[in-house]
Structures are given as C-alpha cells and as structure tokens.
C-alpha cells in the first residue's frame, strides 16, 4: 500500500495547480458571460444601407414614410408600437428630441392593427415628422429588429450608422446620439 501512495505523491507539485487553473478559466468565462444581456444581439446592420421599404399610412389623410424622406439629411428612425410599454417610457425623450430640432425624427409603427398607432400618437403626442405602418414586420425583419423600441441613426446617404436597442434615455441622447449626429453632419458629402 505504501508503494502506491508514494508513487502518487511522486507527481510533481505543480500538477495540483492545473484543476484550480481550469476552474478559474471556466469561472472567468461565466463571470463575463452572465453579466451580459442575451437579448442584445450584435447588430449586423451598422454601416449598411437602409433597406428599401414600403410602409402603409398611419391614417388615410397622412402620407406614409418612404426611404426618400431619409436621404439628404441625418435622421433618426424610431420603431415603436401601441402595444409596447417601453415606448411609453421612451416617449417624453422623443418629444424632447423633436423639440430640440437637432435631427429629423421619423416613426415606424410596428405590428399595429389599422388605427392603433394613430390613436396612440393622439393620446401621448406625435414627435415624428412622418410615420409609416409596418403591420407585417417586413421592414422590421429587414432591419433585424428584435423588439420595440429600437432606433436607427441614418446618415445623409441613407446608411445606418448607429442602432439603439431599448429606450433612448436622456443620458444616451446627450452623451452618445447627439455627438454622433454632429459628427455625421460634419462629414463631407
């Protein structure tokens, strides 16, 4: 018996470090992975051209948003829906952005039955220059949208330059989006 225990003790001492090292490496991956939000997908849409789209009118009297509206100036396209509770949370900030006149703000009313988007905007206020209804997710899927609200910053050539998943907060507007708008406006055409 003493033979066996002697031979096992004969393994070099550094071998004992291996299991601890493996544990630390795996633990490190978990510590990193578990703090990330799995709902936030890496966007493949950055620096791509805004896809072509055909949206329907919010109400028969109002023209629908077209891709042509986005060309020639920096614009912010906000995907919302009357069913979306985070959109109510984001709404005051959108009103503030519209009031600041720093960027052209457009709306995509996503997956709403006819009239629902218009009623929602009548109730909370309409911050958008123009809005289009995407009732069957065609534009949403083309943009890789996973939920509302999502907002796309589009440059003068119609390329998507930034994407925000979830509500725009006052901090995000002041610290990230507004500086980016200034930068895009300074770009030579």
């Amino acid at each position, binding site marked *: 018996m003493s*033979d*066996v225990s*002697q*031979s*096992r003790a*004969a*393994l070099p001492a550094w071998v004992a470090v*291996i299991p601890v090292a493996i544990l630390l490496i795996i633990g490190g991956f978990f510590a990193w992975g578990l703090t990330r939000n*799995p*709902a936030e*997908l*890496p*966007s*493949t*849409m950055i620096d791509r051209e805004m896809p072509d789209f055909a949206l329907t009118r919010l109400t028969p009297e109002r023209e629908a948003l077209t891709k042509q509206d986005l060309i020639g100036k920096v614009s912010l396209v906000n995907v919302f829906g009357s069913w979306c509770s985070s959109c109510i949370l984001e709404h005051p900030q959108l009103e503030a952005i519209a009031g600041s006149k720093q960027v052209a703000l457009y709306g995509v009313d996503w*997956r709403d039955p006819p009239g629902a988007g218009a009623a929602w905007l009548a109730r909370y206020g309409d911050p958008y220059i123009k809005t289009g209804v995407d009732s*069957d*997710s*065609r534009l*949403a*899927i*083309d*943009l*890789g949208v*996973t*939920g509302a609200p999502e907002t796309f910053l589009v440059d003068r050539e119609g390329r998507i330059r930034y994407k925000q998943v979830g509500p725009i907060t006052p901090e995000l507007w002041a610290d990230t989006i507004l500086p980016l708008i200034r930068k895009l406006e300074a770009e030579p055409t």
Partner: protein
Amino acid sequence: MKRLIVALALATSPATVAQTPPATFTPEVESLAREVGKSLRCVVCQNQSIEESNAPLASDMRRLVRERIAAGESKDAVMAYMTDRYGNFVRLQPPLQMDTLLLWFGPLLLLVVGAVGWFAYLRPAGKHDLAPVPLSDAEVAELARRMEAGGKA
C-alpha cells in the same frame, strides 16, 4: 385525474400552441419552409425555433420564409437572408468557423485533457504493482532484527 394532467400538458406545449400559417402554400413549400424554420432561432423567445414559437415576430418570420421559398429561393438563400440581418445568432446550429472552433471542439479538448491527466495519474502506480521495489540493505537488516526480537517476546 391522469387524463386531465395529460390534456393540460398537451394544451400548453409550445408545439401545439404555435399557430400554423394560413394554408395558402403548397405542401412542398410548406415542408421546405418548416425545415428552414426549425433551424431559425426566434429572436424574442431565444431558445425556441420560429416554427415552435408563438411570438408575433416569429409568426411574421414564418410567413416571410414561406413567401421566399414559394418565390423559388433555396433553403440556403433564406438562411443567408436571415443571418445577414440577425447575425449567426439566428441560427440554432452555429456554423463551424474560426470564432466557433472552441464551441465545437471544446468538449473534445476537455475529454482529451482529462484522459491524459487520468493516465498520467494511474501509470506510476501500475508499474510499481508489477515490479515492487526490492528492500534496501538497511531494511533487510531492520526486518531481521525485528523478526528476532519478535521471536523472543
């Protein structure tokens, strides 16, 4: 009671809840679209495929997949269309590429490391069992002394 439980379990299982789209597509399109849909992740409820999920976005994706198949697109083209917009994340089976090598071969690597460690641990013990170390001169002398002492006591 048992029947009730079974009935409830069936009623809430995602496979039966997910609505089949209106039957405006041919059976061939439908079966191809199902194959594609089963390998596409629903981005709302992330561990279901779009065929199983009853999220509104998944149902719109199912319809889009059917329309594209019906328009003559191949399964690969439809997968590429979705991957192009949602990234590799939308594929339930991740592709084999540089940044997924660890994902695909990590378990095999761990198995090899474990096996090598296990054999390294066992090997010396095995050798000693086969060929015991002979006693040293001091040990032989000590043994003889103790045998003698034991005989006397």
